[in-house]
């Protein structure tokens, strides 16, 4: 066995009922034979919807090819790091708080704060939307890719207009759908960014779990678009 230290898992989710209308929507697609692998990056309609939502929130206008659907924000970060060239011991700069610190530790990442002397070889800067760090005021002069972890914020009511400054053209955003009713049971997340970068990340999403569960993707689409998703 690897010498990586086991860490007790600690994940919990709200016990929220699933809306009947969502289940009826799922039934319709399952009955139509949608029980197979989805397109590897995710159902195109869902990816387009995410891209549009990001654009409404301040990101550049992009299409479905700028988005990958994942199993939660954790998987989104994991495949993003691999797509950016992460390997054992790679340095990741963290600007402010990091709710994925346990993942970085398990992967043997060298985590350093922004501005530390040894950040020259880092592959990316990680930031969180709710971090005390102020976006746009602490630029990374080494031009490394910036990963912005939105968590539930993109699909929550508390999106603030000034958050939009975090969604610049070179940024890779990751997040999840857990703010939407019942969606935490479906374990959905996403990666979005420049299509050429997303294409590299996609090879790792596919290598890790092929694609995300089809019913979960449909549930996310329904939660975002309601009856219009039909």
């Amino acid at each position: 066995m690897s010498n990586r230290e086991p860490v007790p898992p600690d994940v919990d989710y709200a016990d929220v009922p699933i809306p009947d209308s969502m289940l009826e929507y799922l039934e319709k697609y399952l009955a139509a034979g949608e029980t197979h692998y989805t397109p590897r990056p995710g159902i195109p309609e869902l990816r387009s919807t995410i891209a549009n939502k990001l654009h409404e929130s301040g990101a550049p206008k992009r299409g479905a090819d700028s988005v990958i659907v994942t199993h939660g924000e954790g998987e989104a970060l994991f495949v993003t790091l691999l797509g950016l060239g992460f390997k054992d011991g790679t340095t990741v700069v963290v600007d402010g708080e990091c709710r994925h610190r346990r993942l970085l530790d398990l992967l043997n990442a060298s985590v350093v704060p922004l501005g530390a002397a040894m950040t020259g070889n880092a592959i990316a800067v990680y930031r969180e939307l709710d971090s005390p760090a102020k976006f746009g005021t602490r630029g990374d002069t080494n031009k490394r890719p910036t990963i912005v972890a939105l968590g539930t914020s993109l699909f929550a009511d508390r999106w603030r207009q000034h958050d939009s400054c975090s969604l610049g053209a070179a940024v890779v955003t990751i997040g999840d759908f857990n703010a939407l009713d019942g969606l935490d049971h479906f374990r959905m997340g996403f990666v979005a960014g420049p299509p050429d970068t997303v294409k590299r990340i996609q090879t790792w999403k596919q290598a890790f779990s092929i694609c995300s569960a089809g019913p979960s993707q449909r549930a996310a689409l329904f939660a975002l678009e309601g009856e219009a998703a039909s």
Partner: protein
Amino acid sequence: MTHDTVKKGEQATSLRYKLMELAASRENVISLGRGDPDLDTPAEIWQGALSRMKDRAPSSPVRGLAELREAIARRYSEQNELSFDPEHEILVTNGGQEALFLTMLALVDPGDKVATPDPRYSSYDQAIGAAGGQIAEIPTDLEHNFALRPEDLRVHAPDAKVLVLVNPSNPTGSLINADGVKALAKELKQTGILVVSDEIYEGIVYDGTPIQSLAACDGMRERTITLAGFSKTYAMTGFRVGYLAGDAGFLRAVEALKASISGPCPLFSQYAAISALEQDKAAREYFLNIYSARRQAMMRGLDSMGIPYGFPGGGVFVWANVSKFGLDAENFCYQLLEKSGVLMFPGRSFGDKWKNWVRISLLAPEDRIVEALERTATFVQSKTP
């Protein structure tokens, strides 16, 4: 991360995807390429999931719902004579691919050798490479129907840390029978090699041959991680449910990774897996009968063209040698697709030296398989010297 291993895996996948893209751009292509069952998941399975979701939606532990783990353990006990503690020795994952990737991250340290029979399911290469492992290929051949033999293990992988064994095999369809598995176990017991026994096709074994789990062999339980899932046996690829069964301490390490990366498998998918196990016997018989008929049609067609192939004892693939037609397999596949509208995958995407071999899937209706073979026969007539 082992760059060469990762790159090889990416290249192999890319080769298959280029062909699939070409196939998607044409009309009336019969796809015998991908490993995605053409058959839909039986309605009873997803209806069961819908009913459960209406009743309640509890949070799931990272390792999976207790009800599902108990059902998996019960199945092992009844059909494989293996006893697993559902609380500590079973972990539900987002499909077999995630199960293998997490296992490699937890098991392999940089520089470790990971042995695999050659040809191999190359989609695992990136997982091995990401963990820093190096692949040690163990040659197999048609003479021995591509089965891994103890003497091959001894010669080619004496210093491997891990053996990844897919039985029945993807891509060859080879089945190592009970005697063969026991002989491997005897050899493995004399080494320090840990085994990842990928039994994702355990529900698709032909001719009534009993499947032998490696972990059920004397002395192997402690050194074997068994990987399986619902995608192939129950045609549930879209639900993404797999699982690992094995040592509790090892699974705790995998669970820690899973908690940080992807969390629990989606509840709806887990409920569908529980329903599948409730339909177990009927669903298995239904699919096995269909695949058995397709396999017979495939063997008849290949025999009529004089194409050598490995005997498919299980799984959903046939591994065939097309060298007699004067083309390497890659050109054979491109030309067959362009001229006859039949998609097969070239052997090179499953190992460097398989330039004359193709992987053909059984995942199309029987009449379409027959038509694909007729088209192939017309195509090869123009290539026969």
